[in-house]
């Protein structure tokens, strides 16, 4: 079971780039890395998923080093509306218990 470790909270200012790192030292060969965003009183929303190297979409980028023991979610030019909790999930696609384990997440506060 690939356990993840994220910072509990982070502060940033509007317009800055935010990088949230997730540690997963015990990641297995078949494990994917997935990030979700959750606003208060809402269900989580998928942000991005990757296996290795770099993945980019219209919302964020995900950087995964060669050893895959960590990953970094990068949010470019954050705004107040990016204030949310961000969850890193790591797991084998064939195992629900691994794939669907949400830790405590990282609370991002974006200030004006």
């Amino acid at each position, binding site marked *: 079971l690939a356990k993840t470790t994220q910072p509990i909270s982070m502060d940033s200012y509007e317009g800055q780039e935010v990088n949230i790192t997730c540690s997963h030292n015990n990641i297995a060969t078949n494990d994917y890395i997935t990030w979700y965003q959750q606003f208060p009183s*809402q269900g*989580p929303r998928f942000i991005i998923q990757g296996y290795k190297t770099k993945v980019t979409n219209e919302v964020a980028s995900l950087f995964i080093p060669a050893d895959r023991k960590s990953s970094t979610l990068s949010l470019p030019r954050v705004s107040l509306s990016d204030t949310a909790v961000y969850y890193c999930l790591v*797991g084998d*696609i064939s195992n*629900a*218990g691994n*794939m*669907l*384990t949400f830790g*405590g997440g990282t609370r991002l506060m974006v200030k004006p």
Partner: protein
Amino acid sequence: NAGVTQTPKFRVLKTGQSMTLLCAQDMNHEYMYWYRQDPGMGLRLIHYSVGEGTTAKGEVPDGYNVSRLKKQNFLLGLESAAPSQTSVYFCASSYDGFQETQYFGPGTRLLVL
């Protein structure tokens, strides 16, 4: 296309009462999930289903039962509610695998007195 909907949005129960939470999705997804989220915590998986007629236990299944009689619906039942089951319950679905993007419903707030 409504996505994932949950009924009811809010409910208050007395200890020992029973209730059923309904989750419906109109995306033809095979996989469906029930989570609970306690204040300030992450989500914990209660039960899940990989297809119509199938269910499986997640991380915290005790005190809950589920049924998936129709592909689009996933029901979560509490036979005898306890104060420890006070939480926000989220339903989610994904197309055809655990690694697929999960789409979440708006949640049901349950208070057990």
